[in-house]
């Protein structure tokens, strides 16, 4: 053999390929600075630098090299970036090389070459599939302490950061007549002809360039290199108005109603976002995602330098990289010939090992130095960090630094299968092909098991015609190019080479071997799902794209069945991994959900309010003055309101406008109490049940005019009550002549409470007679302020004081609040917040969310009297079921410290005194609690079995988790002004 010069042995060829040699790029790998070119992937750049060793396996940390050039790469997972942009587990084959890229190998320590955990490889014989189910059980306490932490540290792949992802993601919808997935010869043809006919087409491909297999193979179309045809078609597609070409876009999931998910990768600097997630609603879908080559697993097939033949050709033809200098090609089909041809023409010595006894070198290889071993298989390999030789079944030893394995092809049926369609086994082509479609889709070209370029172009054109026809548009005369393909020679099935099964890898990432599958069979894990779950075959990041079909074939052989009979596991989305951030788009952290703010929010903020979450709302909790704690502020606000007057923002309460002649009938049916005789200008408290008899909500509803009502709901239940009324009126009782409309956002609401409230409002409305006789408790009035601003006044009280609620159009809320404070300065008017509101309503014994928890009945709340016996209402019948009507149910009671003043905490349980502290003696719970500035002690509301009959009894309020155990006296829940003289005064 003659001596070779450096340029002849350097991995990167001096010409050819689709890289731009004028644009060199610098990157680092494990700290080494390397160079590549624009157009490289990280994988091709590593190989161009002579680097095959790219990772360590998951279980036993064996050295692993690059195997593929696409999404089936199981080994070369990289951690990219630094700091808060550190991103683990990216396959080098799918990473476009950029200048300054920082890549590191994973799952090794201290270095990729010398990984101490590889010592566990010595124990590999002890770790067959499922070994962990059989051991690590003794002693029982050791699992969490010892075994599990060790397993967790050893397992896992890349290290991630806990720093928030600094990048932005976007998302949007797209609609099209035809979505074409994959821009190889089939997809390009489909998109071109559909686009020429004026269809709105989206053509998506995960690659940065269009062309698919035409970029990696030395094929010709119409007598010229296929890449010229690709460039021409790409150019025309770019000019067609109705065609949208989306490179770098991976269509990852196919969902119901022809809706697909896709993620578009964006170069960060230019676009401000890292990725865009698209939900694509497609009239029709053409799946042209191609096929993935599969291996022929043989003993010791996991050494670096042993690659898929398609990848070897791709690196050579697209990226101008020689992945070795001395190659063995191992094939069971004619792809061995094209691989041998391409390698040999690049000056690489090639030996072809073809498993077919009748293999003959085709004419294309004549004149090339290719040695053929026909009817032979590889049964072993040598080499530490790189393959150095292989052994054939006849004992022949072939020194080499590259093995290119061509095991046949698996169509990418994943998206098709995600729709619920069942791929079927094609026993002629020995692969799964698409079955009966469940949605408006068809698979074309290699994706449908039609592997030649000619078939792909025909299929693509056919798909375009179908889409055009379906839309009733004129079908153009087709004029298809003629590719020159090598004759589509049939291969023979060869699923693995027998021998040392424990070193014959089906899934190199997870270290799953042929022996593991056979062990699964021996132990009874024989369905494909059992095999997958027991051996973890197909659960790695490539999700079985590399070796799953081979594994199924091994199981089929063990069971004496065909692959078709064994079947396949379910294909699930995403086809390739998708960033969680992309799926979330901009809805993250503070923007996770909408924030609802009262029209008085800024007004409150200006007055120093502290806010609290209440569902989607933020409500003002209290208005602390300088040096005051939240608690102190709440107590001051309470006292000031009870002695003078306070104003409180209640705009978040649900408000529903109800109009129509049948409105009283509607109210009568949805509330438990009677509504037929509510006079104009009067309000009434109402209790609403669910149909199952439990309390849904409460509130007051006012009669504004004949057939015109204003309903209020609690803040939390407002959307539910609105929806409930709409359901009643549309689905249940469409005969009722009533209209409902939510007006929550239209009105600002202010509670004005306290003994000076009347005086204050009288100053606001000097012309209105607000005397008790003229405007009594539960009175309602409609007035106008200066300039005609409408104002609604309701004399209702949540605090137990003389109190009103004032509504004005939302925008006038702040002005009204300012005006009230101004007018009431000498009356002692202050703003108060949710905390004081809560203190006062507990003192008064009013119920809120703590009591209305969806499990309480009217009787539980002491409101059995509101259940009319004279009419029907929602929930009437089911509230009478024995478990609901049981008199021993926990009933609402008041609780106060029996002696001293210890804190009672909501969430405590109520137990009799003198019993054990166990669930057997549990008699209820504390639902709300506060210190009462009015009474100078802790008080609470709670539910106690037979509560109504236990007044004066002392029980324990036990809060085990926060360390409280308080003797409390059972009292009426109406601590404050039980006769209601203040609110009626």
């Amino acid at each position: 053999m003659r001596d070779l010069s450096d340029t002849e042995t350097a991995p990167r060829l001096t010409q050819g390929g689709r890289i731009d040699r004028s644009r060199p790029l610098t990157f680092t790998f494990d700290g080494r600075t390397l160079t590549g070119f624009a157009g490289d992937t990280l994988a091709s750049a590593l190989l161009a630098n002579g680097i095959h060793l790219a990772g360590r396996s998951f279980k036993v940390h064996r050295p692993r090299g690059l195997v593929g050039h696409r999404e089936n790469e199981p080994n070369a997972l990289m951690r990219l970036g630094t700091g808060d942009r550190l991103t683990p587990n990216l396959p080098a084959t799918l990473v476009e090389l950029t200048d300054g890229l920082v890549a590191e190998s994973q799952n090794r320590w201290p270095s990729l070459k010398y990984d101490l955990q590889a010592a566990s490889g010595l124990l590999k014989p002890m770790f067959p599939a499922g070994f962990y189910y059989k051991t690590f059980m003794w002693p029982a306490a050791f699992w969490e302490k010892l075994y599990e932490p060790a397993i967790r540290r050893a397992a896992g792949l890349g290290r991630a950061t806990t720093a928030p992802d600094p990048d932005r993601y976007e998302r949007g919808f797209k609609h099209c007549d035809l979505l074409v997935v994959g821009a190889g010869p089939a997809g390009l043809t489909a998109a071109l002809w559909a686009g020429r006919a004026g269809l709105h087409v989206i053509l998506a491909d995960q690659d940065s360039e269009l062309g698919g297999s035409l970029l990696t193979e030395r094929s010709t179309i119409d007598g010229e290199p296929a890449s010229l045809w690709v460039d021409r078609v790409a150019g025309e597609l770019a000019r067609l108005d109705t065609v949208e070409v989306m490179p770098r876009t991976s269509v990852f999931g196919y969902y119901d109603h022809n809706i697909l998910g896709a993620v578009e990768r964006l170069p960060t600097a230019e676009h401000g976002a890292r990725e865009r997630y698209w939900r694509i609603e497609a009239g029709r879908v053409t799946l042209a995602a191609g096929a993935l080559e599969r291996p022929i697993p043989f003993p010791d097939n996991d050494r670096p330098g042993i690659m898929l033949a398609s990848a070897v050709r791709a690196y050579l033809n697209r990226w101008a990289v020689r992945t070795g200098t001395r190659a063995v090609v191992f094939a069971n089909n004619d792809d061995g010939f094209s691989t041998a041809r391409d390698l040999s023409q690049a000056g690489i010595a090639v030996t072809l090992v073809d498993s077919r006894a009748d293999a003959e070198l085709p004419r294309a290889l004549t004149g090339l130095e290719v040695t053929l071993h026909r009817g032979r298989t590889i049964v072993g390999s040598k080499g530490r960090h790189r393959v150095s030789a292989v052994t054939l079944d006849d004992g022949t030893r072939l020194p080499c630094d590259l093995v290119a394995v061509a095991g046949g092809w698996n169509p990418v049926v994943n998206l098709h299968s995600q729709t619920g369609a069942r791929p079927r086994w094609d026993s002629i082509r020995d692969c799964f092909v698409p079955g009966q479609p469940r949605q408006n889709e068809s698979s074309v070209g290699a994706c449908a098991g039609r592997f030649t370029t000619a078939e792909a172009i025909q299929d693509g054109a056919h798909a375009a015609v179908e889409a055009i026809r379906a839309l009733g548009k004129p079908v153009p005369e087709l004029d298809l190019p003629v590719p020159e393909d090598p004759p589509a020679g049939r291969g023979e099935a060869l699923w693995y080479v027998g021998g040392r099964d424990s070193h014959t890898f089906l899934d190199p990432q997870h270290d799953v071997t042929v022996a593991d599958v056979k062990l699964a069979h021996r132990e009874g894990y024989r369905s494909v799902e059992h095999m997958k779950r027991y051996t973890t075959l197909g659960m790695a990041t490539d999700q079985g794209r590399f070796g799953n079909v081979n594994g199924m074939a091994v199981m089929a052989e063990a069971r004496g069945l065909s692959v078709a009979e064994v079947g396949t596991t379910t294909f699930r989305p995403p086809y390739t991994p998708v960033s969680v951030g992309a799926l979330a788009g901009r809805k993250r952290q503070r923007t996770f959900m909408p924030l609802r703010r009262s029209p008085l929010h800024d007004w409150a903020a200006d007055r120093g309010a502290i806010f609290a979450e209440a569902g989607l709302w933020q409500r003002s909790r209290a208005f602390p003055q300088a040096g005051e704690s939240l608690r102190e502020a709440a107590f001051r606000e309470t006292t000031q309101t009870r002695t003078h007057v306070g104003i409180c923002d209640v705009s978040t309460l649900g408000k529903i406008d109800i109009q129509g002649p049948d409105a009283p009938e509607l109210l009568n049916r949805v509330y438990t109490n009677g509504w037929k005789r509510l006079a104009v200008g009067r309000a009434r408290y109402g209790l609403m049940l669910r149909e199952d008899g439990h309390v849904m909500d409460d509130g007051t509803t006012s009669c504004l005019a004949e057939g015109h009502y204003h309903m209020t709901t609690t803040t939390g239940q407002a959307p539910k009550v609105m929806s409930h009324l709409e359901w009643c009126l549309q689905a249940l009782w469409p005969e009722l002549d009533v209209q409902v409309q939510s007006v929550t956002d239209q009105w600002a609401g202010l509670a004005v409470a306290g003994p000076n409230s009347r005086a204050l409002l009288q100053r606001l409305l000097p012309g209105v007679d607000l005397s008790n006789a003229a405007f009594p408790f539960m009175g309602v009035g409609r007035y106008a302020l200066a300039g005609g601003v409408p104002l609604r006044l309701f004399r209702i009280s949540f605090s137990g004081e003389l109190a009103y609620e004032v509504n004005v159009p939302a925008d006038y809320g702040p002005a009204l609040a300012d005006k009230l404070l101004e007018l009431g300065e000498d009356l002692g008017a202050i703003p108060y917040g949710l905390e004081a509101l809560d203190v006062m309503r507990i003192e008064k014994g009013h119920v809120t969310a703590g009591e209305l928890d969806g499990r309480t009945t009217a009787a539980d709340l002491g409101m059995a009297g509101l259940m009319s016996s004279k009419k029907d209402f929602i929930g009437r019948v089911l509230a009478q079921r024995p478990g609901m009507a049981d008199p021993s149910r926990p009933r609402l009671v008041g609780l106060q410290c029996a002696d001293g003043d210890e804190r009672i905490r909501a969430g405590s349980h109520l137990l009799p005194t003198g019993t054990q502290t166990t669930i057997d003696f549990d008699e209820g719970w504390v639902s709300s609690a506060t210190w009462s500035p009015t009474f100078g002690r802790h008080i609470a509301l709670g539910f106690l079995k037979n509560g109504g009959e236990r007044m004066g009894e002392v029980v324990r309020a036990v809060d085990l988790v926060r360390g409280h155990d308080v003797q409390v006296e059972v009292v009426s829940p109406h601590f404050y002004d039980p006769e209601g003289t203040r609110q009626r005064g």
Partner: protein
Amino acid sequence: MMSQYSVFQLLRETLRGHTGWRPAWRDPAPKQRYDVVIVGGGGHGLATAYYLAKEHGITNVAVVEKGYLGGGNVGRNTTIVRANYMLPGNQRFYSKSLALWEGLEQELNFNLMMSQRGVLNLAHTDGQVDMFARRANAMRLHGDDAEIWSPEKIAAEVPMLDLDSARFPVRGGLMHKRGGTARHDGVAWGYARAADRLGVDIIQNCEVTAIERDPQGRITGVDTTKGRIKTGKVGLAVAGHTSQVAQMAGLRLPIETHLLQAFVTEGLKPILDQVVTFAAGHFYISQSDKGGLVFGSSLDGYNSYTARGNLPMVEHTAEAAMSLMPCIGRLRLLRHWGGVMDMTMDGSPIISTTHVPGLYLNGGWCYGGFKATPGSGWCFAHTIARDQPHPIGADLRLDRFMTGRELDEAGTGAQPNLH
């Protein structure tokens, strides 16, 4: 005869190339008659058969499974084990179930990788903290563990959380340390192997096509794709298809069938040591021993038997993840899948006799059936053997809807998709 799993056995097999392992269970043809036929070879059915044999001495039992054993929800859940309920009727049951989990691996001689790493529920308001306290106190009164964690403690223990920029602040949390995860498939396999060793016949690929009754309405047997099997007692444990199978016996149930999705990322080195849930997004997450972050959120929300979810819930789940754990943005979703849930009208399960003599019902597990597996088998075996509910599962009876004793933890009423 099947061998006991042990380190010794593993070493011995290592020396002879693992050729001596025998099937974990037999593959018997159905006999003509069994004392009990359990329909459904999932976790609950297999556990029931195991406890029938072990606790009640009833070994002439068949478990008939339409597909492969463990192929339903036991093999597609998010593997969470816990006993953190508020209502006594539920907590009593789950408390027993958790007690059975502890020690189950040794009992079954199968490593279930039960990992009591703790389940942390995050509360977003002071009111929620108090509600959690009510629940935590109920748990403690049952003799189970519960703690309330402060926001500072949570921040220190769960570095993935970003509490500073959260839409819903974290005001506290309920930590249940004995909760955690277990290897879901292992549970089905472990029970199958143990039941098989006690003489139970597990018959896979055998679909029940009819439930047969005599003129008095009593159960007489089942018709299957592998022939007719006579029996006086049929136990249904087919969560996900309960409505359909019960219909064969003329039973209409308080169940709607819904779809729940689950998600897993690519494997990572340890980054999350607890199971964490937060109500603001109905979100829950843990990290598997293999390294994947396993998470989920709400039901898709509409009736479905498809086990295939849709994008709105995929998006919502990702948003929920990004709301409190924004480091997850760069991590990549490897796979998402769906399971079919029987959602009851009150969100709690059913273990019950029925009005059909000889027919027993176990179902309505909503999305929480995995953790219940041992307790469910324990109670259901008792119900079948004694013809009456087990005291710890007595509140799970079917007649609770008639009597007005629903167990509604969420308090949302008869709307299954909200539980």
